[in-house]
């Protein structure tokens, strides 16, 4: 093997060599620089492979003498990975900076080489004084490289940095002197062995070195100078500072803490404050590079937490720290490099990426890397970290980290929203091949790291999951015409269903049938879209892959990974709507919040077991079980939009595209119900402080049903009306589940099927109508029945089914409901549910009346029926509804028997045509026949006596002896239920919306106010730094 000391010697030597070259040999100097960095990368890579194969750590002693007479270096697995990261970052930075370096000449190149060398030294060294030397070199090189930027503020930023760095150096040097005085050695390993704390003055000495290294990590809040550098330096250098310098400083801290385990909690605290504080401040930020600076500070803070929890993490330490570090470094480098291609500095300027789909994909990948979404390394690492923290009893820390992560996801995805939905400028991003190479290298590195961490995790590599691979396969296929991709998607979904369904139990089968053939049915409507529809299929298939993996998951990891996948997929899908930017953000923030609760619930239940079988959920320790239940239930209820957590739903469902709304409403909402099913079957009822949690769920379900329905009746927008109706419908299903009896669960399953069919059908109808009329406001429509008869039939059947009027399938749901509540012990929540029931009539009638009945507007006289591909799935759904109404037993009797295995007793008797319960009976076919015969006879009678009726228009009406003015003024539609608003409108006060709005406003305003302490003034920053040092010391000593 090549000696690792070359990693220091080569860049140093090359830097000297560059000085000997003639000044005008810029090309040669540049080639030499690249070569040096490439050789460094190759050496690091070779070492990494060596250690990955199981080689022992290597000690390197300069001059062949043992320490303290020589400088000691060490290289092992972690060091070699860190070195590779540093050298590759520097190599790509050099590539990226090609024009700048060629312009500035060999001196700039030499400084870059010195920078890379110093960082490598920081990683390798085992000597504190040597550490100091390399830190000084880093500082000097930084001071030089900052000036590569064309931004005039860079000069000031560099100067402020130098002031701060001097202070840090003084602290470090003083600390070194004290340490040497106390311990008579500066060798890190020897210091670790003698436990410095016990020596006189040792604590202070260690503190000074510790705080200097922490300050070098640029942690919040004493980091104003660093933020100015991130903001104003050349993006390639900012990338280097964030990815490589951050990595090196982290190695330094890690080495230092080997001898100061008493300081681990301090590191944890500082890291935690940094993670949350920086993420909070980033909320109010609209400059992209400064935002990345905040994000870097936050990520390094999280890594310091990981270092602080080293003892707890044990053998998983490297896996966790490595995963987060790698994700941070790749994403941050990639994002800074991308920012160099973007003209403006405002977040909205990133809309330019829309002109380059590949770059947009890279952007999405980097954001996902940072947030820690699957299948990237941060996901596996955070999963492991959360489990260890929970098992170690560090619940508060876990909660804080999850809170910080949610803040981070919030601002990163808002940024992504700007990029996807903003107006792209005339000019796309600059085309610079060498810059592209860097970005694409980071992108490839991110995915490769995802694969690697999946392999290392021992939990099952997500990039081996077939459904996920199927979804990802649509990325390279995105150039195909949309209709071809649509056929592929439908074939894939049906194929998977046919392949997998024999293995499902009846419960899984019902959900899988809704997801796969159901999804394929809705995808028929997507044939309507021509062109290529870039981005639609990867997102949709990611959602469906997540959904089906959720149903098939057997353990907590598989379940959670599927949950995150479906959440991301659906987010991308919702974001496609024309005006959905804000709503998609609200959706993803709520969903991730819910996902984090689920994560917390799983970790509490698992007690360190990272792959908890779902069937073992019920084995959670008694003291924790109610909390596990609560966390999981609230997480799942976020997805079903239970009242209070519902505010994301109306906008997200209403603003989505025509074929997306039925997917996210008819299918996606069922993921939450499935989760609740799993939870309740595994954990049963739980008591928390004497409160029966399923009883609380009954109330939440009932209130969701009432308030969802009430809000639906006051909507003017047809899709919003349907969206609010979903909140109500999910409330019913939640109520059924929370009844905790056989029929309650059966009713919930019936809702799963019914709600899928009628809600997706109604969303398609309304979408088709909106396409033709150009509006979603119902009062602008009217009288469309004759022009759009098929859409009318779909809506008519849909509303009869929802309202529960016999003879359609909705009645079956109501009948089971009544039988279920006969057994339930809780009666008060029923009052609310009974009130909610008839209110559904109000919005359903409004939907059909104001769109199809009443007066046809003049501007709609030439409107045609909705497009064929949108009508086709609706007609199939009409047939399904009628079929399900006639023979509900076909689907339900097996499920009934299956539930009988879980909740014995109280089942239904399915003999013959009549369905019998302990209390009553019901015969769908007979009812259909009787109603049919009565209806047909009376109709025939009317036809007979009224055969000469003359067809007249809607406007030909008797109107108090006057002629009405125009159809537009005669259609009674706007504010249709005005009296109801007077009577019960107070129920629809947007309390939940106000609460969440106030909370986010508070966070934003707090961030806006507090970040003013970054005054931009160098002296202030020095005071911050000093205050930070004193503060940490006092807190540590006071502990």
């Amino acid at each position, binding site marked *: 093997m090549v000696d690792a000391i070359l990693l220091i010697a080569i860049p140093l030597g090359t830097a000297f060599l560059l000085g000997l070259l003639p000044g005008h040999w810029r090309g040669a100097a540049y080639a030499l620089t690249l070569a040096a960095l490439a050789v460094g990368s190759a050496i690091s890579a070779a070492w990494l492979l060596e250690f990955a194969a199981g080689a022992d750590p290597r000690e390197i002693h300069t001059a062949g003498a043992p320490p303290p007479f020589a400088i000691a270096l060490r290289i092992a697995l972690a060091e070699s990975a860190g070195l590779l990261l540093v050298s590759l970052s520097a190599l790509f930075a050099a590539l990226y900076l090609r024009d700048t370096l060629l312009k500035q000449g060999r001196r700039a190149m030499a400084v870059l080489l010195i920078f890379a060398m110093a960082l490598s030294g920081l990683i390798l060294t085992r000597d504190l004084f040597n550490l100091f030397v390399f830190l000084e070199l880093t500082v000097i090189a930084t001071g030089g490289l900052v000036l590569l930027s064309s931004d005039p503020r860079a000069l000031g930023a560099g100067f402020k940095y130098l002031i701060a760095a001097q202070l840090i150096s003084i602290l470090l040097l003083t600390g070194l002197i004290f340490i040497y005085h106390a311990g008579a050695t500066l060798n890190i390993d020897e210091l670790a062995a003698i436990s410095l704390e016990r020596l006189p003055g040792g604590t202070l000495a260690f503190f000074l070195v510790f705080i200097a290294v922490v300050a070098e990590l640029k942690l919040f809040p004493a980091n104003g100078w660093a933020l100015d550098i991130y903001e104003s330096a050349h993006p390639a250098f900012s990338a280097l500072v964030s990815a490589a310098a951050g990595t090196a400083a982290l190695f330094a801290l890690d080495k230092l803490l080997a001898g100061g385990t008493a300081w681990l909690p301090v590191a944890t605290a500082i890291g935690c404050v940094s993670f949350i504080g920086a993420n909070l401040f980033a909320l109010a930020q609209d400059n992209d590079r400064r935002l990345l600076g905040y994000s870097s500070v936050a990520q390094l803070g999280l890594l310091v937490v990981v270092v602080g929890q080293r003892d707890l993490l044990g053998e998983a330490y490297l896996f966790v720290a490595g995963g987060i570090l790698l994700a941070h470094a790749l994403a941050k480098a990639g994002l800074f490099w991308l920012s160099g291609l973007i003209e403006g500095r405002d977040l909205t300027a990133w809309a330019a990426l829309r002109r380059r789909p590949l770059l947009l994909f890279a952007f999405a990948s980097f954001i996902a890397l940072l947030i820690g979404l699957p299948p990237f390394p941060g996901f596996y690492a955070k999963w492991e970290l959360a489990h260890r923290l929970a098992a170690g009893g560090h619940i508060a820390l876990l909660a804080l980290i999850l809170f910080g992560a949610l803040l981070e996801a919030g601002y990163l995805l808002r940024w992504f929203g700007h990029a996807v939905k903003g107006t792209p400028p005339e000019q796309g991003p600059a085309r610079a091949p060498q810059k592209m190479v860097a970005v694409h290298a980071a992108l490839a590195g991110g995915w490769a790291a995802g694969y690697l961490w999946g392999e290392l995790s021992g939990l099952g590599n997500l990039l081996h999951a077939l459904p996920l691979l199927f979804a990802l396969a649509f990325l390279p296929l995105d150039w195909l015409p949309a209709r071809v991709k649509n056929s592929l998607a439908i074939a894939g979904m049906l194929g998977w269903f046919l392949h997998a369904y024999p293995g499902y139990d009846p419960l899984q089968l019902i959900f899988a049938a809704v997801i796969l053939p159901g999804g394929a049915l809705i995808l028929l409507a997507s044939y309507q879209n021509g062109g290529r529809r870039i981005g639609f299929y990867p997102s949709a298939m990611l959602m469906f892959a997540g959904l089906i993996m959720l149903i098939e998951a057997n353990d907590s990891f598989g379940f959670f990974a599927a949950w995150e996948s479906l959440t991301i997929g659906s987010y991308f899908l919702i974001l496609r709507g024309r005006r959905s930017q804000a709503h998609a953000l609200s959706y993803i923030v709520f969903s991730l919040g819910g996902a984090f609760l689920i994560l917390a619930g799983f970790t509490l239940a698992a007690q360190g077991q990272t792959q908890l079988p779902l069937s073992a959920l019920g084995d959670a320790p008694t003291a924790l079980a109610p909390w596990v239940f609560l966390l999981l239930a609230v997480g799942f209820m976020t997805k079903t939009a239970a009242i209070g957590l519902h505010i994301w739903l109306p906008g997200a469902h209403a603003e989505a595209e025509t074929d997306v709304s039925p997917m996210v409403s008819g299918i996606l909402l069922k993921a939450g119900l499935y989760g609740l099913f799993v939870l309740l079957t595994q954990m049963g009822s739980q008591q928390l402080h004497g409160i029966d949690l399923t009883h609380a769920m009954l109330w939440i379900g009932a209130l969701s049903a009432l308030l969802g329905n009430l809000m639906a009746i006051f909507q003017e927008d047809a899709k919003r009306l349907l969206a609010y109706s979903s909140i109500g419908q999910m409330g019913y299903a939640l109520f059924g589940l929370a009844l905790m009896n056989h029929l309650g669960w059966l009713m919930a399953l019936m809702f799963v099927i019914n709600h899928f069919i009628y809600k997706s059908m109604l969303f398609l109808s309304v979408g088709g109508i909106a396409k033709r009329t150009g509006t979603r406001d119902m009062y602008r429509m009217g009288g469309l*029945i004759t022009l759009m008869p098929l859409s009318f039939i779909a809506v008519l059947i849909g509303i009869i089914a929802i309202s529960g*009027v016999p003879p359609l399938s909705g009645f079956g749901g109501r009948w089971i409901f009544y039988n279920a509540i006969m057994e339930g012990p809780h009666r008060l929540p029923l*009052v609310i549910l009974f009130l909610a029931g008839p209110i559904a009539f109000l919005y359903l009638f409004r939907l059909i*009346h104001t769109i199809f009945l009443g007066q046809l507007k003049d501007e709609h006289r030439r409107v045609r029926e909705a497009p064929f591909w949108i009508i086709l799935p609706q007609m199939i759904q009409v047939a399904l509804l009628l079929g399900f109404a006639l023979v509900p037993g076909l689907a339900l009797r097996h499920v009934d028997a299956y539930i009988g295995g879980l909740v014995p007793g109280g089942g239904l008797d399915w003999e013959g045509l009549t369905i019998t319960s302990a209390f009553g009976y019901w015969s769908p076919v007979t009812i259909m026949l009787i109603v049919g015969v009565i209806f047909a006879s*009376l109709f025939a009678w009317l036809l007979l006596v009224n055969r000469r009726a003359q067809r007249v228009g809607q406007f030909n009406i008797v109107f108090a002896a006057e002629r009405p003015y125009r159809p537009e003024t005669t259609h009674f539609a706007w504010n249709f239920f005005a009296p109801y608003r007077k009577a019960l409108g107070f129920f629809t006060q947007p309390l939940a919306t106000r609460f969440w709005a106030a909370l986010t406003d508070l966070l934003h305003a707090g961030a806006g106010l507090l970040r003013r302490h970054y005054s931009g003034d160098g002296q202030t920053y020095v005071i911050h730094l000093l205050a930070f040092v004193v503060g940490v010391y006092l807190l540590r000593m006071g502990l």
Partner: protein
Amino acid sequence: MDFDWIRIPYALLTLFIVFNYGLLLNALIAKIAARVGRRHGIPIWQNYIDLIKNYGLRSSITHGAMYYLGPVFRLSGGVGLLLFVPTIHGSLMFANLSFAGDLILALYFVFFGTLGMALGAGESGHPHAAIGISRGLSQVTAAELPFALAVFSVALQYQTLSVSEIVAAQQGGMLNWTLFTNPFAVAAAMLSFLGSMMRPPFDVVIAPQEIPIGPPTEYHSSYLALMQTNRAIFPIAKVVVYMNLFFGGATSWPLFCVKVFLIYMVSVLVGVVFPRFRVEQSVRWFLVWALPLGVVAILLV
């Protein structure tokens, strides 16, 4: 309960009896209401005349398919409701078609006619029809609530959803009626009953002085005749449900006639005394006065 073809003619016989009784009862009640107002009132056979006249009218128009079907839905709702509930207790002959479903079927089938009628009236394009429907639907949400609670309370009390079994449980003397065994439920249900009978103070739906008869504004000739037929059948069908659930059912036709008349008269008595509520007033009235009774009924049972 098995099906037998003979049930069909029996059911038609029930329908025939109720239809005629309904026509006469409506006229009688109109007459009583007129007498309260010191008027003479209509002849007792007036409804027959109106019906024959309307079926006989030759000039008629239609505003479209739903408009045409509206009255058909309405009457199917009335006939269906009547036939899904047993009329005479203990008589297989007049158990009608109740083998198809239980109490829940009857409760939800009420909406079949309402919804169909609302759709038909909606297609007429007349704003008064739409206003009437808006009012009617608003009011029914609150008015139905106490009734639903009362029904649930009764079902819990007798531990069954079968109407026949509920009636059977009340046999053996007046004191066995739900009226006496579960008075809160009956009180709640009877207040709800007021709201469903289209009489003052809850007749804002058809409010003749404001929106000339509301939903049926555009209906005439045979459409109107169909609806008049329903007006004879539907209220009685509804009263039969009340009679079966709360007042011991009826074991013979004479008893049936008396009980139906008396229950019907409750709404008439209230109606001739009180002026009309606005919609929001009646919604609040049901929630304030009737709902608590219903809640007490389900908590006490």
